[in-house]
């Protein structure tokens, strides 16, 4: 008997993947519903190892899903809900067509909603999983909280987003979890650390909503995402509040102030507004432990970790602890023109007290006239009435201070001053081949002098500095400053060595011979043999070049491409350095001209 011939693509990669069309057919869903369920369930196409085989021999590029994923969807109860929803839509459509508006209205009123709690749990089995995936969720929710009601975005969705984001920010304030902030041209970046997970999100600048053409943005898709994200964020909020011993639908601790003796028309709205102001702490669960500062991190000498790493971790923990109470006891006043919400959020995260003009927004706690205000944040060139007891700083000072983890000196950030560049805290400094702007270098080591010094007396020094820099650029661009400095030191040592005993050269016999000869002839003053200062490096480089040839054939292309990447980055850094240098020179020149002009003017005035 002849055994049955195995069909092609019935096993292996061909059976593992399924095109989208096949998936639609299998699930008996329309594309719209399929899209929705994919978004809700987090199903995504997969890239096959071998596309030809995965597409069962078909050409072109198709969207491929894992067959197992589709089978997984097949058991989802929501699919049935979607089908019922389809029937319901038909009912509504029919009622409209039959002009039974009353019925239609009723249908619309009782429109069924899909409950997706179980999906949140399913997609994120643990809380930490959910936190890990919170970046997109927060970014989208913060965006939607600024949206007006649109055709595809119901009003209550954006309201819910607003509520949840405010709740989340409160949780961050309570947990003091904010670590980094950054003002970009796109919006405000925040980075928090919750349960050991770093979460980064963006909040757009004011008036972020702009009408979008249909082919640019499909709000329906975003709305579906937000449907899921609000659910997820709600549960995350609940859990966060729970772990922080806060009452979940947040409530204010402070009693209503005196001016609220009259009846509140809507207490709910009143409280919600105060909560959104983020200026008051939320009420805790009764009987919760007040003292919940984290215990000191005990460092155990585990064998696998080297002590240096532990030391670093300890330092980092210390720094973070300091950061958490950076603004503690300081009173801030926010002027009208300054974006209120980001600043209040940041200042409160680090323990500061903050207030603003009473007419500006609800929830102000003290007036501008309060003498104990330490910092007044203004974003205008000048002010009529100024108090002597406080500093008038620009908002960038707050952001930069947070990133620097100390209160920066305010002299560069005073009202009306030209601000220093605002640097991103997200650049990974541990990586090599990263361009570090001089401002940041100055921040890291206080000895470093930025090139655009303000004093004219230090011109010469600067020049020498520059020269040194250039040298460094030439020989060791890819290394950090420390390495460069070390290399330099070593070179010098080598030089000294070589000058001290130049006789230790390559073939001693010959030299000796020659010396004897010379001695026999005459005694002349010895000329110190000057070894090439980079001799050693050249040798090393040569040796390295030889070793490079021993890279295995398997890795050769990879090595080449890596090298090419290194070269590219090197070039970029070089370009940035050059641009900076040119810019600085230009600025200096301008300053000189300015000074000369002033001098001339002064002379003229005196004459």
């Amino acid at each position: 008997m002849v055994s049955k011939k195995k069909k092609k693509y019935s096993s292996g990669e061909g059976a593992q993947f399924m095109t989208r069309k096949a998936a639609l057919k299998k699930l008996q869903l329309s594309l719209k519903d399929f899209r929705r369920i994919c978004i809700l369930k987090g199903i995504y196409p997969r890239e096959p190892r071998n596309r030809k085989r995965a597409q069962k021999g078909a050409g072109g590029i198709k969207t491929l899903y894992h067959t197992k994923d589709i089978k997984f969807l097949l058991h989802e109860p929501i699919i049935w809900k979607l089908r019922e929803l389809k029937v319901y839509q038909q009912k509504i459509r029919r009622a409209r067509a039959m002009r039974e508006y009353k019925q239609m209205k009723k249908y619309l009123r009782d429109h069924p909603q899909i409950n997706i709690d179980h999906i949140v749990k399913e997609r994120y089995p643990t809380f930490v999983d959910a936190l890990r995936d919170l970046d997109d969720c927060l970014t989208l929710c913060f965006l939607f909280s600024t949206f007006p009601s649109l055709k595809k975005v119901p009003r209550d969705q954006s309201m819910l987003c607003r509520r949840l984001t405010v709740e989340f920010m409160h949780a961050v304030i309570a947990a003091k979890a904010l670590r980094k902030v950054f003002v970009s041209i796109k919006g405000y970046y925040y980075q928090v650390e919750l349960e050991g997970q770093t979460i980064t999100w963006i909040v757009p600048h004011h008036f972020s909503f702009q009408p979008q053409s249909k082919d640019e943005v499909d709000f329906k898709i975003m709305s579906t995402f937000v449907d899921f994200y609000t659910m997820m964020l709600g549960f995350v909020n609940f859990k966060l509040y729970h772990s922080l011993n806060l009452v979940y639908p947040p409530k204010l601790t402070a009693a209503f102030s005196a001016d609220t003796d009259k009846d509140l028309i809507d207490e709910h709205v009143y409280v919600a507004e105060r909560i959104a102001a983020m200026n008051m702490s939320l009420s805790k669960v009764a009987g919760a432990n007040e003292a919940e500062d984290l215990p000191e991190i005990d460092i155990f000498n585990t064998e696998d970790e080297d002590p240096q790493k532990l030391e670093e971790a300890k330092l980092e923990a210390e720094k973070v602890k300091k950061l958490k109470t950076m603004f503690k006891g300081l009173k801030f006043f926010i002027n009208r023109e300054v974006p209120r919400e980001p600043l209040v959020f940041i200042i409160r995260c680090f323990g500061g007290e903050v207030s603003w003009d009473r007419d500006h927004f609800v929830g102000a706690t003290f007036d501008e006239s309060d003498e104990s205000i330490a910092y007044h944040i203004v974003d205008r060139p000048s002010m009529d009435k100024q108090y002597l007891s406080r500093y008038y700083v620009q908002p960038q000072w707050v952001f930069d201070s947070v990133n620097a983890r100390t209160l920066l000196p305010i002299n560069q950030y005073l009202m009306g001053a030209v601000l220093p560049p605002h640097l991103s805290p997200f650049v990974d400094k541990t990586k090599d081949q990263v361009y570090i702007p001089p401002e940041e270098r100055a921040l890291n080591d206080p000895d470093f002098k930025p090139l655009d010094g303000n004093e004219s007396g230090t011109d010469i020094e600067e020049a020498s500095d520059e020269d040194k820099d250039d040298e460094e650029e030439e020989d060791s661009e890819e290394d950090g400053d420390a390495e460069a400095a070390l290399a330099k030191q070593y070179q010098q040592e080598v030089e000294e060595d070589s000058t001290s005993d130049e006789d230790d050269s390559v073939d001693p016999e010959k030299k000796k011979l020659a010396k004897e000869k010379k001695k026999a002839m005459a005694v002349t003053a010895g000329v110190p043999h000057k070894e090439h200062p980079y001799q050693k490096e050249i040798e090393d480089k040569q040796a390295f070049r030889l070793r490079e040839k021993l890279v295995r054939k398997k890795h050769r292309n990879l090595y080449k491409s890596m090298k090419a990447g290194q070269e590219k980055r090197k070039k970029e850094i070089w370009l940035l350095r050059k641009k900076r240098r040119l810019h600085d020179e230009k600025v200096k020149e301008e300053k000189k001209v300015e000074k000369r002009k002033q001098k001339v003017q002064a002379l003229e005035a005196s004459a």
Partner: protein
Amino acid sequence: MPPFRSGLLKRKSSNKESNSSDSEKVPDQSDEGSGDEELIQGALNGEDDATDSEHEEESGAASDQEQDAVLFDDSADSTFGDDEQVDNDSEGSSDLTDSEEESGDENDGSSETDEESVDSGAESGAVQTPSGVSDASDTEKKDTKQKPRKTRQAKPKSETTEASIDRLADTIGKASVKTQPVEKKDEYESGDTSDEEDRRTTVGDVPMWWYNEYPHVGYDLDARQVLRPPQRDHIDDFLKKCEDPDFWRTVRDPNTGQDVVLSKQDLELIRRLREGHVPDPTHDEYQPWVEWFSREVLATPLRAFPEHKRSFLPSRSEQQQIGRIVHALKMGWTKTRKQLAEERRKKREKQFYNLWGSSEADPAQRGLQRHIPAPRRALPGHAESYNPPPEYLLDKQEMKEWDKLSETPWKRKYTFLPTRHSSLRAVPAYERYTRERFLRCLDLYLAPRAIKMRLTITADDLVPKLPSPRDLQPFPTTEVLQFKGHTELVRSVDFDPTGQYIVSGGDDGTVRVWECSSGRCLRTLRAGAGAGAGVARVGWAPSAALALVAAAAGRALLLLAPGAPAVAARLAERTDRLLEAAPPQHDVTVDERTSSCAQWQHVAPEQWAQGVRISIQHFKPITHLAWHARGDYVCVTLAEAASRAVVVHQLSRRRSQLPFSRNKGLVQCALFHPTRPQLFVATQRVVRVYDLVKQELVRKLLTGAQWISNMAVHPGGDNLLVSSYDRKCIWFDLELSSKPYQTLRLHGGAVRSVAFHRRYPLFASAGDDDKIVVSHGMVYNDLLQNPLLVPLKQLRAGGRRSELCVLDLRWHPAQAWLLAACADHTLRLYA
């Protein structure tokens, strides 16, 4: 009750009372009329009615007045008329159009009675309807038609009882004033009595023919007979027709039998009815509508009659119904709309709870297999700052490039244009923000995901970690000496076993002996003079007991004595002695194949004087030669010699051997194993190792090279280095495998020569690029440890001549000195 209905009802009632009371009708009139005007009308009812005769129904008094006027005429007529005529007239009046024709028709009693009964029925029906005529504007025409007849019906009666009616009117007028409140009360109680209102005779409800025989018709209040009006016959009629100018408009009241002359107004009314107009000429069909029953609360009620008790008392059944609903609400069985809406809102509101609980999730929860989490978005760099360092802003040239790439924005350096804002308040909203978020959403659900291993290594990690060359000294680092003397390129060099002397051979056909330390040329031997070819290879006999140099000059292999100044005289002498006497002819006969390949020739004395000790002629040019370690055997490789490419010569017995009988390929070179009786033969691509004792192939080494150029055996004998023309040096660890242990690509051109140092773990390779590479090649005694190969130094070789650079390499036997035979006619010594 809807307003129009109430209006109807009220009209009815007013009609009932039309004779008796004026004041009653005031609201009615105001009802039909418009605004203030009507109200005034109501107040001045009497005068109004006097002028307007057609408002008979509305105002009983007015109609009475008019009737009075008519009565005069009728009374005059009544003298002629008889009872019969009345009926006829009445008949005619019922059908006004043909009253004249029918006047001639005299009816018999029975028919008359029929008519009467019908009429009365019609009247009773009509009684109600006329009320609607004047009241509502949209009453039927049929009703309006009947109205005039009804009015006429009223007239005869008033005529006959003029005095009584006057009185009656007076009494009614008084009574109406008096009884108004009372009447109002039982207006609805009394029921519908409208069928009595037009009865002006006192006969009661009996057929009129009962009175046919009597001169009177009923009795008045004082019980006197009411005389019948005079009846007329046809002649009277005719006469009257001739005489009376008003005859055409005289009709007979069937009830009373009186003649009634229609007034001008009546005629007008009839005309209007015929034409289908509203009978009232003053009626304005299009007068403005006044919303009487509006939500506005008026100071005075519109309706003058009291509400029914029912309207004050709560309905019992409704009360019960409400009670049931209230109970249901109380019990929570039903809910109010507000509650329902609230519930609906609550249901719609998302409820959050502790989803994750306190326990850890079971790992089987997640259904998605091999989940690949979406990669996070890249974090922003300095360029994205609202106030970036100046170097990140694009300068003019970069801007130009930026603009040029507007069609292909993905090729740009940044996805955004770095911009500097002087202060935070100047930062606008980012235009593409929503779009970017949308694209991220698309990525999340639409982009195919795959796990890609990211390299965590740096490029330097790929470079093997090797000890620093500084730790592996000594090795030659610089060029020390150049040996000049050759006039053509130097093909081959070799050290003598002590390392004091160097022998070299080149294309100029000379073999030169040099002193190593001084670089002096001690002796020059013309080897290839006879053959006319250069010296391809030279080799100093490795045995310390012999002072002999082998030189391959063309087809001849010459064994030369390097000469007295070069070598200690005693050694040279001994060697000479050894070679002088030819050994005894050995018993083994040399076969034809070997003898035709290599022939040992007798050395002529003059040749002997030149230094040639032995000469062996081959049938093909020699490409390579190698000494056995003991110095007794020389292995020669011949070019294009097929199976006879390798020839082994034994000096002691002056014998040649052909180890191979079959062609195994193009033999490049052949070497002896330093200790074991083995022979390495390199063909174009493989190296074969033969055991010379057992005469068998030991192993075959696959080099992977395209064309082998040379090879060298490690002094230990277990490692082999093969060089190839395709730029490779291939290290074989014979203990390990027959595949290369390592392939070194250290050269940019073909590698022509490799050499092992005899004492130090060094080897060198050189070829067509101008670099000699000295490497460390450590072989350990421990079998488990693989050899360590470290390239140490690149030495600059001499200048290249026509693609050739270095042709041969040799190490000094004791020192870490390297000797290279260069194409620029020199030998170079590196130390």
